[in-house]
């Protein structure tokens, strides 16, 4: 038989958190290039609709400010002056 690590199914929060740290280290795939296409299939949305939405939101100054802020990494400005609770620091 294989030697398998069986995580706890305890209802104790601390047990569950400890399990996560031990287990996740080797069980998360990063930088996956395909998950988006396989799971979400973004190409199913037509180019026309995307263009229409893009045109529409380009008229929204708040959205433009947000995009500009993330482009220049000045989100703090947005956070403090526009929409305080949007960004949370850990």
């Amino acid at each position, binding site marked *: *038989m*294989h030697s*398998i690590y069986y*995580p*706890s*199914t*305890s*209802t104790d*929060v601390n047990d*569950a958190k400890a*399990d*996560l*740290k031990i*287990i*996740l*280290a*080797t*069980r*998360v*795939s*990063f*930088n*996956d290039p*395909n*998950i*988006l*296409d*396989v*799971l*979400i*299939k*973004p190409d*199913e*949305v*037509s180019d*026309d*609709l*995307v263009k*229409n*939405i*893009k045109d*529409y*939101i380009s008229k*929204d100054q*708040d*959205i433009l400010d*947000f*995009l500009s802020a*993330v*482009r220049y*990494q000045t*989100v*703090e400005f947005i956070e403090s002056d526009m929409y*305080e*609770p*949007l*960004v*949370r*620091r*850990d």
Partner: protein
Amino acid sequence: MLETITSFNEGDSEDDAKTDTKHTHNKEADDEDRDDDHTPSKPISDTNFARCINRTWIDLHNIIPRTDPGLFIPGMPTDYNDLEEDLVIGTKRSPSGSDKGYADGPGPSKARRLSKEQQFARDNTDAPEKRRPDLVLVDRSSQEPQQDWCLWRHFAVLLEVKCDNSDRPNPADGTALTKLAAKLADMARLHLAARPFMRYSVHLTVCGAIFNLAIFDRAGGVVSKDYNINKDLEIFIRIIRRLGRDLDAYDLGLDRTVVPLHALGSREHFPEFRVTVGGFTYVTQGLPLWQSTSLVGRGTSAWVAVLEGDAEESGKGNSKTFILKTAWRVYARLPESTVYKMIYSATNEPTSNLTNLDGVAQFVDGGDIFDPQLPNEMIKVSSHRKGFGKPISEDDDRVLHRLVLSSHGGKLHKFVTFSQLMRAAKKMNSGMFSGFAQHPFLTPL
């Protein structure tokens, strides 16, 4: 921005009409449901509510989402009054216009807007009831008034926002577990516990200009490569549009072998689910009796269920109840259903010494679950990971397994006398003794 993309209807281009078909149709299905019967809680057997797409984005910074009353999941509040007084603004809000199901209301947990110092302190506490995503895409019921609060089981997609690119879930070295990935996984385990019959939990992250899609399931997680919201704005729009308008509950992780018989977005009623085991179809009743809160592992949940149609024949409340148990089992181990069959077949063997199975649950049916679209393929964790993610080890690639048991006792917390507890303990003890200790081929698992 998210809501604008999701609800955009202007122009009604040809494609817009096409992508809206499912959405509109589903609304019609709900409307038909309402027309047929003015009791919105009554399940419509031919309506598959997993296919109904009616979603909205909710900002959770001022709301602490809860679980249904009676559903205990460590890390989630079931009652506002459990929360710290300084975080709660007072009154519960009952679901408008209804007193059914939630007389006390599972309503919103409204937290006061916090100063930055308070926010920092709050976010750096380890208090589990404060663990929640920043924004969520939630299922709504078209039969109920729209609310600005939600329960964890309403989450279709969880979104986490950070201000800096460096907070993104992909590690710089490509392998180390990032803080955000661990946080997503922690929320995913709660999501999988609160939203029944889920195969995986879908997450979006926006960290500065970088956005990622991630899923977490019983074998771990997969995080997409990094996208830049400025360079890849069209991709972002497509993702939000697909999540909010096109992808149904199955596409977003619900087990394709179950059918919800109520709207997944209902605030008033915990949905019933139609589940097929062997040749029979069962309908779950109310909240699960128990559900695992671990992410990786069996993900067990246990339900009270009745045979479909039995309630009509026997009269409501008179139908025989069963225990339905769902779990992801390790393929290399003996299935639980096989163990039960071995125990019960052993009673027919004169040499087994197994004559009395008092305390062993009465096995009715069970086995591994097969994909309805690929009848020769068992449903494994890897079934939904075809085409992405690194290969899953054999030990992690678990198989979906279900059991139906006819033994159904009372809940431990409803015992009122010590003798009840002692009788239950005696049963448990005799079951262990009967099932394992006397049989040479059966050892405790």
